[in-house]
């Protein structure tokens, strides 16, 4: 049993509070900015007390941005939908491809299996910009530039290695004897995969899917180069708030709040799985 004195507990509490303030400050500040006008945001010194306004959110939802130079159309809601669509579809495709592949890598040591698995992982090492230039040229030739299909394909670079390596670790953790027992019982390898391996690796697959979703959602550079306005996700769409008449801090903040809400909600909901998934991925690396 661990005994802690009162002083120790107070000090620990203070330290924790400091850490939380340090990490939460930007998010809290952005949240506050999203309820202010550009004038109150830019006032020096900054003020903690202000009159909240919903103007920023209204502008985002209606798609009409009022600036000093006039009214500007913005496609924020469209961008938000693009983000949802691109992330969900990419993760779904990645799961469809990555989970069976992870199973193969975990269970069958064929010639070159480690090399292939590592090559897939190495996609995550390569700087995105390095890949993008040739990719753009190819995509334009193939007619994939500025299409959902093309974007989802490129998003596999983000999602697939992540899902593959995390889920592989989970599959490797299932004792092979359990699968042997099912097969000896008279079931095919596919039935074994469906009825034994998939349910047992379920939490890992869920964690990997959530992580991949967050990474896909947060992606900026692929979409910036490969998508035009009507296919852009929110990460790129937020650039529209840097207008000729100045940066719309209020709207940017509101946009950020709206765009991090889904991932934040997901992360909070699946916190336990996420931590498990991350640490397991790290151990099994």
């Amino acid at each position: 049993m661990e005994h802690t004195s009162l002083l120790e507990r107070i000090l620990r509490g203070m330290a924790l509070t400091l850490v939380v303030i340090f990490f939460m400050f930007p998010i809290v500040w952005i949240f506050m900015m999203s309820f202010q006008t550009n004038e109150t945001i830019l006032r020096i010194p900054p003020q903690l007390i202000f009159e909240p306004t919903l103007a920023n959110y209204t502008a985002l939802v209606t798609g009409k941005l009022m600036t000093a130079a006039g009214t500007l159309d913005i496609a924020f809601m469209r961008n938000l939908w693009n983000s949802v669509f691109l992330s969900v579809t990419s993760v779904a495709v990645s799961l469809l491809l990555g989970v069976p592949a992870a199973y193969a890598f975990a269970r069958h040591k064929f010639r070159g299996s480690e090399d292939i698995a590592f090559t897939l992982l190495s996609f995550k090492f390569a700087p995105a910009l390095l890949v993008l230039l040739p990719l753009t040229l190819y995509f334009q030739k193939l007619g994939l530039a500025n299409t959902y299909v093309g974007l989802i394909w490129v998003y596999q670079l983000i999602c697939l290695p992540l899902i593959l390596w995390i889920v592989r670790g989970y599959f490797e953790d299932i004792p092979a004897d359990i699968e042997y027992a099912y097969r000896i019982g008279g079931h095919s390898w596919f039935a074994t995969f469906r009825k034994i391996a998939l349910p047992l690796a379920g939490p890992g697959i869920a964690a990997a899917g959530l992580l991949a979703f967050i990474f896909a959602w947060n992606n900026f550079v692929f979409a910036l180069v490969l998508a035009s306005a009507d296919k852009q996700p929110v990460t790129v769409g937020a650039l529209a708030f840097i207008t000729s008449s100045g940066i719309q801090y209020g709207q940017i903040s509101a946009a950020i709040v709206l765009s991090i809400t889904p991932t934040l909600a997901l992360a909070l909901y699946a916190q336990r799985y996420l931590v498990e998934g991350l640490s397991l991925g790290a151990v099994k690396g």
Partner: protein
Amino acid sequence: MASLELKNIVKRYKSQTVLDNLSLTVADGETLVLFGPSGAGKTVLLRLVAGVIDPDEGKIFIGGDDMTDVDAEFRGVGMAFQNFALFPHMSAFDNIATPLEAKRSSPGAIKAGVESVAKLLKIAHVLSHKPRALSNGQKQRTALARALVGSPPLLLLDDPLRNVDAKLRFEMRLELPRLLADRGATVVYVTQDYKEAMALGDRIAVMSQGVIRQLGTPEQIYREPANIEIARLFGDPTINLLDVKPARDTRGIYVGLSNVQVHLAGAYDAAVGRDCVIGLRPEALSFVEEGIPGAIPVTVEAETPLNEKIVTLVRTVRGREILVSRPAGTPGRSEGKVHIAVDGKSALLFDHASGDRLGSKNVVTLRNGEAA
């Protein structure tokens, strides 16, 4: 019902040969025990038969059919794993039901099949539990039930009593032979426990380093072990092994034990003058009065009363330690200088260099020697 035949099986992992040109036949309805230390290749052999790993060379026949390249699900065998290998996300009922589901049995037939085997194994009351809510003994019975439920003609049991407590192991050792005999199935049973091997096996195959060292009935393995290693593995307390050099006189071949000449009856001509090891089972030694021919003087060092027998550690005049075992309740001295005699039936002679048993295939007989 199905016989099992393995022909010239070779299995290698990287450069290591796990099974080395192994051949084995198990008759229909027979229970064969694979016995040997860990790493002997017993489990690998079982998995080859089950079809979850493939041999590098050789053929596997089940019921006369070549099953070497047949997938595990079509071999029709039942297997219980040492680590139970239960499906953690299914209830005990669903675990046991899986082989029946594979046969596309009707829900009613599945329920009846599972319940009858569960009743037989006394786990009917825990069928709704998940494996993590079961005790080790219940897990072991669930695993066994899963192997039995489809009435497979060939049963593979991989040390199923390894991970259960001593009491349950003893109970199951009594129950299993009847259970297996009732099923009429051919059984290959892996164990590291010689008592289990003796209790369950019609025949025992003693394995080490991927080779079958001896194959025979429990009686044969105990009475005529092929070498020192096997003699040492079977028997509790372990066999006494003493270095001797057999010599010949007018009355035949004899060994000297503490200056007492003990004559051997057997075809030991080749052993004369060679370094040998004599093996004396503790229960083949008895305490005798001084002056009886063949009485060997010893000093009692310690005495351990077990429930059914008393084991005495004695020291010979040359300082060699010997264990003597006698049934509880029989007279004996617990201290001081005493004499022991060698029983004529179970002394064994081994070659010192190779460890192989010398002499004929028949039970070695040994006459009580007389002082020269």
